[in-house]
Every structure is written in structure tokens, then in C-alpha cells.
């Protein structure tokens, strides 16, 4: 189905956020944080976060900043 991933259109067969992260190839211990449709999804809740068409997913990592 179509979703938005980090601001760009994407296609995925994943049904949960946890599945999406695994299918995208993120390392198991990856230091990332997630949000769906503007709302924070804690790591512990990724498995139960079901993805539906046109969901807006953000996957963020640490970066330099002022």
C-alpha cells in the first residue's frame, strides 16, 4: 500500500510500524525514534501500531544541532 515515509511517497507491504522498520532494513539496535501522522510512537508500541494507507511515517535519528 501507499504511505508517506520521511516526507516522500513510498510503497510497503508492512502491516505494522515494527514490520515496516524491519523491512526497511534498520539495524535491530538502531538509535531511531518514530512518529505516525504527527504522533510519537514509542518503541514499545511499534508492534501494535497498525499501518493503514496514506499513513505519514517519520523515522528520525540523532543529528548535529545548535
Amino acid at each position: 500500500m501507499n504511505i508517506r515515509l520521511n516526507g516522500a511517497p513510498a510503497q510497503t507491504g508492512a502491516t505494522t510500524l515494527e514490520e515496516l522498520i524491519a523491512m526497511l532494513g534498520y539495524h535491530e539496535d538502531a538509535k531511531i525514534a518514530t512518529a505516525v501522522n504527527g504522533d510519537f510512537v514509542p518503541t514499545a508500541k511499534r508492534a501494535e501500531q497498525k499501518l493503514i494507507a496514506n499513513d505519514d511515517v517519520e523515522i528520525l535519528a540523532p543529528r548535529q544541532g545548535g
Partner: protein
Amino acid sequence: MVEFYGQKLGSRLLMGTAMYPSPELLQKAVKASKAQIVTVSLRREAARQQSAQQQSGQGFWELIRELGVRVLPNTAGCKSVKEAITTAQMAREMFETAWIKLEVIANDDTLQPDLFGLVEAAQILSKDGFEVFPYTTEDLGAADRLLEAGCKLLMPWGAPIGSARGLNNPYALETMRNYFPDIPLVVDAGIGAPSHAAKAMEMGYDAVLLNTAIAKAGDPVIMAKAFAQAIDAGRAAFKAGLMEPRNMASPSTPVAGTPFFKLD
């Protein structure tokens, strides 16, 4: 010692981590500055970027951990309350800290704080247990509301972020210092030279946060040291008690015994 939310710190220099020519220079500069707090951000990262350790968030995170400094995540780029709140929540989980440098930005050219959004976000985040470091202006009304919202310190700008203009409105910053004598106040944004930082400290500010002025210096490591020295000097001068400026000259050399002096 300066104290932020119960954490006592020996260094009054907070450093940003962006725009350094290389990760190695960032590390060296932070060490040279003796800063104990660095700011970081959260940004989008694709899975494939993780293999390039140097550029990826994972590599950067390792570098920061090696420095052994306290991390202050920011909500840079957030233009709405919702964006700032979600970013803060993500930051809290990722960096394992309740500290958040709260930025809610009103304008892309000046990057000035959206004071309305800032106060609203500060209220919500403080209630949720965050320890908010609000990036604000010299507006005393906003300052009152931020403190009422639960902020225990304020971070007014010196000048627009990255502008290197120093203290654009020293009168207003002095007023703010006088209005909130017991609140930790940190000048954050727009610093360009060590003299700007020294001036803020001479005014009685508790600390200075800067990034670009060190990262974009010709030699960031030496500049980091220079800023640390300037902040120390400014603080010492403040504690020592600066003399009041005068309108007219007042001779320092004794007048009595001046040679060749005739009364008539």
C-alpha cells in the same frame, strides 16, 4: 557553579554540534571548550545511510557518547506546537533525557521564536515531565508566562541564530536580568565573537549557548578555547564588580603635586 534543573555544572559554555568541518574537529573543539552540555537534534534518516557510520545518526551518537557530556536535544525547525511536542517526545526516548531545548519558530528569515506557540508547548511539555530550556526573546511577558508554565530557566536570544551579530539589544537583556535575578538566564543565539559572550557574562548572565561562531571559525579548536576564556573572564568580572561608567574624564594619576602647576 551554574545549576539547571538541579544539575550543577562547572562550565558556563553550552555548545552546539552542527556545521563543524569534520567529526574530529567537533570532538576536539568540545574538549577544548570544556563544555559540559552539547545540543543535538533529530532528523530523518534512511536505513541505507546507517552503513556509512560517519554520516549516519548512529556514528554521530557514538561520537557524542564518547565525549561524556550531557546532551540537550533541540526542537529546531519546528514551526508548530504539535511538531515541537512530538519532536520532544521522540527526543526524550532517543536521548534518554527529560531535557529539551524548546524551539518553536515563527519566521524562516529571522528564525525568531513564536512566543505564543512557545508558551503553549512549554506548558504541555512541563506538565508531561520535561525540563524545558526555552529559546525565547527579551519579551518580559513571554518570560513570565514561560516561568508560570513550568520553565525553571530562560534562554533569550542575543541576535538571530547564526548571524554572529552579538547582543542586538543589550538594554533589553539587562532589563531581563534585573527582572529575574534568581532565574538562570542563558544567552542563546547570534553570538559571533568571544567579546559578545564576555559581555553577556559581565551583565550577569549565567551561561552562553553558541554553535556557529565556533564551528565556522578559521580554527574551531582555538576559538572554542577563546570562548571558554571569555566566558570565564566575563563571569569573574561580574563577580568582581565592574566600575560604573562616567560621562567625563576623571584623572587616575594624583592631581596633588602636579609639576609646573600654577593656581593663577
